């Protein structure tokens, strides 16, 4: 079958709607990841709960995300009868927790990386505790963590392509639908490839701008 511009134009809008799905899913998962990551960064060293946090991080960093999706989507309802099976919930929770496991490390480094000497210097100048937390600690912690957050977000937009296995209507799922209709894989593949490339070009451009803008006051 020959490449057809007509078919490409005809199906591109339908497939690219899947890009919106990916962006939405990635945003929600990144947000969950940040919250879980910050919590883990603080709880990891706590007695009693620390081992649980470490086990969670090991599980999500030590197994492929594909396995994680299957494990929760098929495993949990099998183990616990009546467990909800909404695919969106699974996709969001698995990718959110997966991000959280990666971001926990980043967050911990960001918080611990704050130079104690700078805090002492500010104290010695008579700066109030409130201003030290705001202007010296948080200000620098956010700067140091934001680029990593952005990278995680970019990684998520790519990794989440596997949610099609759960039947979430992303670009890959739409690809199968279009091929079943037209018997031609090439046009949807071109659209998907260009879609992902453009998305990540835009995202990394924003990321770089942000990083440069945030580096210094």
């Amino acid at each position: 079958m020959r490449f057809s511009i007509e078919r490409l134009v005809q199906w591109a809008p339908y497939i690219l709607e899947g890009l919106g799905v990916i962006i939405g899913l990635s945003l929600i998962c990144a947000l969950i990841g940040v919250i879980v990551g910050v919590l883990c960064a603080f709880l990891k060293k706590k007695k009693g709960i620390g081992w649980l946090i470490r086990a969670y991080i090991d599980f999500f960093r030590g197994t492929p995300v594909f396995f994680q999706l299957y494990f929760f989507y098929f495993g949990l309802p099998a183990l616990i009868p009546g467990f909800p099976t909404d695919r969106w919930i699974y996709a969001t929770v698995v990718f959110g927790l997966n991000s959280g496991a990666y971001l926990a490390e980043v967050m911990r480094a960001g918080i611990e990386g704050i130079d104690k000497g700078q805090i002492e210097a500010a104290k010695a100048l008579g700066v109030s505790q409130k201003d030290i937390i705001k202007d010296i600690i948080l200000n620098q912690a956010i700067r140091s963590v934001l680029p990593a957050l952005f990278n995680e977000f970019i990684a998520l937009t790519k990794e989440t392509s596997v949610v099609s296995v759960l039947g979430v209507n992303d670009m890959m799922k739409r690809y199968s639908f279009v091929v079943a209709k037209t018997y031609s894989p090439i046009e949807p593949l071109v659209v998907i490839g260009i879609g992902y490339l453009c998305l990540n070009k835009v995202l990394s451009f924003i990321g770089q701008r942000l990083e440069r803008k945030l580096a210094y006051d």
Partner: protein
Amino acid sequence: MIKIEHLYKDYSKDIKVLKDISFTFEDGKTYAIIGSSGGGKSTLIRCLNMLEVPSEGTITLDGVVVNDPKTDLTRVREKMGMVFQNFNLFAHMDAKKNVAYALMKVKHMSKEDAYAKAKEMLEKVGMGHRTDSFPHQLSGGEKQRVAIARALAMEPEILLCDEPTSALDPEMTTEVLKVLKGLSHTGLTMIVVTHEMAFAKEVADYILYMDQGQILECSTPDVFFTHAKSERARQFVSNML
């Protein structure tokens, strides 16, 4: 005037660092604190501005008990500038903001006034041409001069320096010591922990020799370097020279 009475500092039950220190720092004088590592020099000057909380005893600054929980530490710290071994500049602020920041936050100066004063102070330490540089763009000696400008901008009565040149190579040490020497005997009380014997000899009014958490000796440089009272101080001097 800073009056220290029966000051003790324990970091824990086993780590007792300062042991019954009593001493008075007179206004306008320059003091060099010397002694081997681990003797409690840093702990002592960090107690003066409450970066470390004393375990026992009192520190009085111009009649105000510094380590009284009711004392407003901001007022105390405004009078005492501090210069650290590792400079401790705010990494995300350029040189002028490093100096201006506390002027705005603590002295409540307007932005224009704070930056004007910052530029003036940076010029005073020979950094007038680098006001827009960030700490990572400066050499160690330059960083330390910005840190000195930052402390001086607050117009302190006392300047505490904890080994201000120990992280610097000899050339940079010279430029920083030159700035410190220029500040001595200008009305500012200077308390400088240092291993630079030549500087101590030339600039200090008094040398305090500290060992194992006590001030073993306080003498003028002439006396200290020729006939120190304690055997340990004599040993220390002969090792250093």
